[in-house]
């Protein structure tokens, strides 16, 4: 895991000191809220419906135990005792007082954390595969490259006033667990013909009111040129992205307007003029970063008698194994999902006590390593098979072992109108209603993989466009209504969902989901997931079931 060296530590300390000074100027009335706004936004501090919200960066979703403990402490001391993990693997605290914000940033800096570039028209917190360093299907550790991007993008002097926000994701595995195709830049590690490593560079994906799946502008970029090539992309975007209309300012609009081919040509032209040797990291620095991510594992047998015995003894544990435990590259180890989606709870919310428990488990059983996923869950990447039953027991006691990863109750939802000033409708209660209807784990497992994603407005923080079932809250003359889409997915075969029909009132949404699930269960052929059945049948049978009453 990357540990901050003296330079990184001094950098975040300087940042915290700067913000303290700025807040003091605001509290003393030396600057107006209008002047202060861009400053606080550069530090992830938003003014929401009820209070300030602080968005804390969790670079590539990776936390050490001491960091998670510190987040718990901050949630307990300065907030209401809980925090909210987002689809960008950040943590949001929704009840912050302005006067406490500098102290919080100091406390974060103390454990190598910050809120830099979690808002504003900047390069945002970079995300990566949560299985990094633990899965057998990766070509290289994507965290090496994510950390490289983190450093390069931090207070980048040229790219801190972009036309709009800018998000980068990195994956090195065949299975895309980072939704790279809906990012401004998605980087897929590939092997070239000679065996060397490079990136497929995908640009211009994004959701919001004009959703786009990203386009590949370069099939193979040698890894050593990553930063200079990113600099070329960002410069073309900074100069030519639209600034006259906030809704057309993302890079996806520029790429769509120019066409991917012409955009790629402009990037290549710019790249050819950049002195790459100045921008690209030297091999020594790449080796240093790589060294930080080297983990050591014990040599263990590939199966565990302890685990097998527990599995035979307890069907609940057996179910947890089926849903929440995944193969590790190292024999005798597993990846263990921690669900933040217990039916009835707010998706992604976690109490300070739960954070502390997971921090303890990570320290004792998972190499001091916790990951945040874009599905708003956590995972322990390196658990010995022998330890899985004990980890499960402790997670279950804390309400963190719901065996529902990728099932219908593993719902993504934005904070919605319960917190957010932009929202048109609530998202959390809709998620809760649906989850309660499928709270029976047998039923949820029978339905199988089904990803529901809910956004409270068109900004699409809940990724509704790429949900197998997507739900978008809209305002109709002061009433909350919900538009439903089907068949979206952010993974390798990325696709945007298709509209089901007219928007439904809040009271009808969970029922409609149940009706659509019934259609799927009737229609599905051997082994088909909901998504597969939908792709075969199209929208018609689902539409018929949901709107039958209306006809």
């Amino acid at each position, binding site marked *: 895991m990357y540990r901050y*060296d003296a*330079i*990184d530590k*001094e*950098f975040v300390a*300087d*940042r915290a*000191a*700067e913000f303290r000074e*700025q807040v003091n100027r605001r509290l003393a009335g030396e600057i107006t809220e209008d*002047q202060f706004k*861009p*400053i606080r936004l*550069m530090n992830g501090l938003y003014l929401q419906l009820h209070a300030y919200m602080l968005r804390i960066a969790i670079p590539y979703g990776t936390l050490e135990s001491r960091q998670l403990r510190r987040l718990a402490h901050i949630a307990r001391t300065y907030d209401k005792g809980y925090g909210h993990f987002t689809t960008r693997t950040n943590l949001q605290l929704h009840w912050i007082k302005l006067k406490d914000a500098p102290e919080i940033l100091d406390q974060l800096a103390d454990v190598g954390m910050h809120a830099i570039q979690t808002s504003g*028209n900047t390069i945002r917190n970079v995300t990566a595969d949560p299985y990094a360093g633990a899965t057998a299907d990766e070509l290289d550790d994507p965290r090496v490259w994510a950390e490289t991007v983190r*450093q*390069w993008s*931090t*207070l*980048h*002097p*040229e*790219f*801190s*006033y*972009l*036309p709009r926000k800018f998000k980068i994701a990195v994956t090195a595995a065949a299975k895309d667990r980072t939704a790279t195709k809906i990012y401004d830049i998605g980087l897929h590690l590939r092997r070239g013909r000679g065996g060397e490593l490079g990136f497929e560079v995908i640009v211009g994906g994004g959701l919001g009111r004009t959703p786009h799946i990203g386009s590949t502008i370069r099939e193979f970029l040698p890894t050593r040129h990553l*930063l200079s090539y990113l600099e070329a992309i960002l*410069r073309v975007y*900074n*100069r030519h992205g639209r*600034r006259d209309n906030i809704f057309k300012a993302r890079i996806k609009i520029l790429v769509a307007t120019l066409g991917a081919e012409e955009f790629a040509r402009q990037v290549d032209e710019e790249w050819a*003029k950049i*002195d790459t040797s*100045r*921008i690209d*990291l*030297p091999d*020594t*620095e790449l080796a*240093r970063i790589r060294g930080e991510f080297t983990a050591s594992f014990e040599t263990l047998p590939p199966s565990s008698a302890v685990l097998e015995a527990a599995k035979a003894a307890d069907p609940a544990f057996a179910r947890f194994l089926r849903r929440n435990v995944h193969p590790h590259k190292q024999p005798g180890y597993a990846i263990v999902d921690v669900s933040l989606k217990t039916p009835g709870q707010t998706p992604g919310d976690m109490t300070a006590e739960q954070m502390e428990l997971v921090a303890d488990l990570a320290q004792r059983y998972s190499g001091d390593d916790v990951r945040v996923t874009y599905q708003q869950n956590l995972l322990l990447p390196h658990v010995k098979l022998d330890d899985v039953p004990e980890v499960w027991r402790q997670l279950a006691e804390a309400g963190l072992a719901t065996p529902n990863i990728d099932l219908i109750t593993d719902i993504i939802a934005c904070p919605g109108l319960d917190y957010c000033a932009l929202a048109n409708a609530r998202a959390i209660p809709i998620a809760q209603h649906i989850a309660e209807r499928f709270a029976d784990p047998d039923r949820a497992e029978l339905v199988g993989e089904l990803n529901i994603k809910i956004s409270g407005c068109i900004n699409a923080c809940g990724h509704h466009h790429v949900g197998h079932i997507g739900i978008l809250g809209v305002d109709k003359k002061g009433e909350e209504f919900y538009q439903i889409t089907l068949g979206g997915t952010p993974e390798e075969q990325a696709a945007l969902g298709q509209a089901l029909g007219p928007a439904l009132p809040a009271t009808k949404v969970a029922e409609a989901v149940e009706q659509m699930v019934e259609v799927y269960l009737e229609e599905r052929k051997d082994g088909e997931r909901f998504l597969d059945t939908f792709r075969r049948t199209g929208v018609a049978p689902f539409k018929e079931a949901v709107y039958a009453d209306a006809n």
Partner: protein
Amino acid sequence: MPTLIKLQGGRAVLANDAFTHVDDDQSLPPGDVIISLTRFQADGERLLGEGRSVGVRLEPNEEAEALAYDLPRLALVALAFPKFRDGRQYSNSRVLRERFGFQGEIRAVGDVLREQAIFMARCGFDAFEPADGSTPEQWEHVTRRFRHVYQPAADDRTPAFVERGR
């Protein structure tokens, strides 16, 4: 007359401004002037022939490349920020310094605020007309606030990866 702050060897100092900003519809006063790109393209040759120093003001939608062949004759390039949020001039400044090796003054004019000072300085700006009443002391404080930087730009600061290699 707006305040003019110049960065010299890392120090911010108050400077006398020998230049007059001249709008396109104003008649030209004697002495050193800063004029628009349009006016420069029309009258630049003549003005330079008169022996005065000429600066050109670029708007955010005008690219530094338009001046490529004139730069050796220009005393300064003024990069305009109609709104502080418009970040295109950071790219223009780096292109002027890093691509064309421009050694003259690059001046930030318009909605120029203290919080942007570090970004501007790193992109090669060395003169500023602050819109927020900042003093040279305040300006310098912001440009020196961070002991480290992570990436090379148009200034002479040593990026973290080079510091680490030492």
